[in-house]
């Protein structure tokens, strides 16, 4: 028991550091992947048949692209992206490459989430906006996205938790963070204290993220 406390005390600085890295990694990839997903998801929604910018060909291409990227196992995806990362970032290893890969993978996952949430927007309000002579782009910005904001918050919360999970794969290419730490120093070294203390922090962070998301969505949805 005492041993445990002692070991935890020793771990603490590292855990703090790894928590910081995880937060940074998730925040940045959420920023990029979130924006990317918003773009692609909205594009999917507006170009679909009956959408405000109906473009069957654009939809088909985007849809196929999303379907192509999403199912690729993340490990393979990271590796496949390394040449691109090297061209863009100058290296194929490390935290920045992880952020790069997660952002791109997240773009396509989040795109589907965004698309789904937009589909639930009441066609009546879109029609009301069309009747004012608003352009499709304005309708997207001022009607479709705001009307879907509550569900979108929940969608992004979902995605954030998925990103935390994804970020643990970071360890393959030398990334850091709580998940990688739990895998490398806990799981692969059979040290349950490390594994579970890192996981405990991940879980606490997740509770906070989800709590925040639920709270925000409730405020926005007002029911």
């Amino acid at each position, binding site marked *: 028991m005492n041993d445990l406390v002692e070991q935890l005390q020793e771990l603490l600085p590292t855990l703090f550091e790894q928590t910081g890295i995880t937060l940074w990694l998730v925040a940045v990839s959420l920023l990029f992947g979130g924006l990317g997903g918003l773009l692609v998801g909205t594009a999917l929604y507006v170009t679909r048949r009956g959408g405000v910018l109906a473009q069957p060909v654009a939809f088909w291409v985007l849809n196929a692209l999303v379907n192509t990227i999403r199912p690729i196992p993340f490990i393979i995806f990271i*590796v496949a992206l390394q040449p691109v990362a090297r061209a863009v970032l100058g290296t*194929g290893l490390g935290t920045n490459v992880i952020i790069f890969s997660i952002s791109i993978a997240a773009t396509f996952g989040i795109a589907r989430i965004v698309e789904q949430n937009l589909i639930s927007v009441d066609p009546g309000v879109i029609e009301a906006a069309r009747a004012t002579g608003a352009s499709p782009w304005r309708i997207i910005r001022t009607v479709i996205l705001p009307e879907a904001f509550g569900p979108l918050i929940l969608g992004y919360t979902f995605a954030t938790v998925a990103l935390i999970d994804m970020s643990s794969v970071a360890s393959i*290419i*030398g990334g850091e963070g709580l998940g990688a730490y739990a895998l*490398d120093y806990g799981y692969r*070294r059979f*040290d349950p204290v490390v594994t579970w203390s890192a996981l405990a922090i991940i879980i606490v962070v997740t509770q906070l993220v989800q709590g925040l998301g639920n709270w925000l969505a409730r405020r926005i949805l007002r029911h």
Partner: protein
Amino acid sequence: AGGGDSEAALGSEDNPVRIGTTDPADYWDTFVDLAAEEGISVEIELLAEYTEPNPALSEGDLDINQFQHIQYLADYNVASGDDLQPIGSTAIYPLGLYSQQYDSVEDIPDGETIVIPNDVVNQARALLVLQSVGLVTLEDGGSTASSVQDIIEDESRVEVTAVDASITAGSLPDVAGAVINNNFLGSAGISSQDAIAADDPSDPSALPYVNVFVVRADDVDNEVLNQLVDIYQGNQELLDEVQEFAGGTAVFTVIPADELQASLAEVQEQIESQQ
């Protein structure tokens, strides 16, 4: 980016030597300190999968790596058309078969399951270990490229399942036996003494399983990198830590670089001829 300033001399503060490894081991901290004492700045890149360090080295993300044996390197060079070269040896780690339920290979009943690592080289090596004690029979007598698909079922006593190398130790409760790499013994609390079968590091055929420092071909004579090899091989304190991490299985072996390279060439040729 992790590249550092390529203008600065390799090993200086501004352009540290980037070493790739897959072992989340504390001895690397010691190694960094030792190198610093010699005025060489070193950065450790810890990668999770055996698949990562070689492409990263050849692409220039790393300057040197140390995680593999010659057999694995040869397989990689042949498969991907690269030309990475060993410049120093570290140790040979015998690959052992362990069991919770049985004290000897003979006790293992027919039809039981054995797990082995699923990466190509260790899978083949593990199969050879199993064949050497009569648990399986492999097509064409087996080779360093054998996989579970090469097992001749009718002539084998056990079923074999390949799992991630890191899962083998944890799978012991599920199966009659597991072939476990050195990397996972110490932390799983298993002693190498408990192996009910293993290959013999002193056998000449074990030479390809000697672990090596690997660099890009044009860095073979790089002084800084060679100096790092010397530091590794020459410090007892470090070697003790490595041994601890390996669960006591390491057989430290110092082989000259040209012999290593010759052995590599030989294994590569062998692999090519098998295809």
